[in-house]
């Protein structure tokens, strides 16, 4: 029998490539500024900015450089203790990003695993896990965070734990839904028929196929985690002095809102811009990985 060679339809391939290239462009357009900001913040100690913790009370509440009374040694002004706002934004960004990534991972990993298990095995495991997912989603996040932190005190690990609790249920729910439908695909039947052990099916076949969705969710979650951490820090429950995060800076800034608006304005602007970029990136990723999915 003459052998049959592979020849995928050429036109479909080039069209596919064009769509994917456009999608990739959007992803790059949002990922780049975000990466730049993140790198700058994470490299803060290496940058030539003043020490963010040094208090120079004589310099307190100086306005940003472009207003009267400001100068370029403190481009964004100083806070009530004379600390440079710009430097604090960079250092604050470092902690904000690190906590966001840690919190997100701490939620993503158990959430994805539980989603895979409950979607694939179904039955009792699914019922139990789903109940917990719903229960988690029923608890208003900040209240739960308050309850835990009030009970256990402030600490960075505690904060990351709280943020993990905030996120895991979303992963579990989304991954479960995808796994449920993937499970019915013929190739899974084939694998089970061939005796491939279920854990291997989950990790080597289900997981890579849900990876796209998880990636999108992960990106979007970074944004929500940043917002959550800022809210907690703003309320005094998250990051507290001497550590700096954008939320904590906002707490400081509130007291001086009328006299020194810049202390509150810039950290909040930083949060908004970063979360917006993250959301745009997440949407672009979603479109890129599956152009058939709606933008919303």
């Amino acid at each position, binding site marked *: 029998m003459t*052998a049959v*060679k592979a020849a*995928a339809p050429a036109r479909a391939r080039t069209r596919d490539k064009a769509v994917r290239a456009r999608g990739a462009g959007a992803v790059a357009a949002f990922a780049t500024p975000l990466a730049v900001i993140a790198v700058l913040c994470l490299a803060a100690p290496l940058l030539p900015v003043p020490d963010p913790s040094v208090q120079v009370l004589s310099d307190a509440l100086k306005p940003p450089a472009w207003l009267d009374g400001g100068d370029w040694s403190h481009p964004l002004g100083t806070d009530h203790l004379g600390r440079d706002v710009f430097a604090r934004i960079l250092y604050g960004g470092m902690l904000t990003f690190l906590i966001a990534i840690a919190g997100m991972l701490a939620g993503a990993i158990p959430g994805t695993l539980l989603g895979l298990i409950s979607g694939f095995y179904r039955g009792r495991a699914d019922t139990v896990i789903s109940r917990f997912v719903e229960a988690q989603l029923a608890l208003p996040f900040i209240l739960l965070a308050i309850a835990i932190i009030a009970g256990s005190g402030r600490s960075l690990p505690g904060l990351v734990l709280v943020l993990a609790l905030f996120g895991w249920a979303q992963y579990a729910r989304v991954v479960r839904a995808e796994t449920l439908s993937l499970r019915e695909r013929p190739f899974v039947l084939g694998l089970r028929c061939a*005796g491939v052990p279920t854990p291997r099916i989950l990790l080597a076949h289900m997981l890579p196929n849900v990876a796209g969705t998880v990636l999108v969710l992960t990106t979007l979650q970074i944004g929500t985690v940043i917002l959550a951490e800022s809210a907690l820090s703003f309320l005094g429950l998250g990051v507290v002095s001497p550590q700096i995060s954008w939320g904590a800076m906002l707490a400081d800034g509130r007291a001086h809102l009328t006299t020194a608006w810049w202390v509150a304005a810039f950290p909040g602007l930083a949060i908004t811009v970063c979360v917006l970029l993250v959301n745009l990136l997440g949407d672009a990723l979603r479109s890129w990985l599956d152009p058939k999915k709606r933008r919303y």
Partner: protein
Amino acid sequence: MTQEGRILDVDGLSVVHRARGTGEPFAAVDDVSLHIDAGEIVGVVGESGSGKTSLAMAVAGLGTITSGTITVAGVRVGRRLTKEERTRVQVVLQDPHGSLDPRQTVRRGLRELRRIHPARTAWITDEELLAKVGLAADLLDRLPHQISGGQAQRVAIARALLLRPSLLLADEPTSALDVSVQAQILRLLLDLRATENLSILFISHDLAVVRTICDRVHVMLRGRIVERGPTAEVFDHPTHDYTRRLLAAIPGRRAAATYEETYEDAYDGAAPGGAR
């Protein structure tokens, strides 16, 4: 892969499901018995809802068995089987591309099977295996979306073959393919039966296809087998009303119905697949 004797023995099989909306139990498969001996290609024909898929899943060890027994090459089939036991029945399903993990190249897929069953799969190399199903070795490094439907189905058959099953369960293997490609796949199955002494349980709604390659055929209606017998006999002298209706519904029904007769017409005497 020489096999002897009774390969498949289904005895009084019933599969009871619960209906979606109401939860009422209904019998997808109702007291079905059939058997396959070594080297036979046996067909099960029915419309959707006849229970043929439930039957197939049960035989493959992937679906529920409410009562009755299924024995494949001496092994009782159920939901819980060892890896080794599972190799005795392998499946080829309707959706060729859906049967392959979209993220795995053909080679990686085969390698995975080899890792799970190292001894059992040592008998042939990847290249030789692909050659057996009429594919060139350069397909090994392709992803499913880079090969055609017919090729994907051949890969599925290759994957099944690799594990040296006693029984190949083909559930609508050609329904999603073009007529010309259908012919090739059916030819392949016939050839494999000859060279590997493979026994095949062939499930389809398409009578014309069943006629071309099955030695014996069973007609299924609402979970029961209403007619059975050698293919020619059932087609030429149907006894059950339902069978007659099915036969009457075949468009452009021909008198001739062996493989060569059916597809030779479409190909002006040259059997698809080239030399043979």
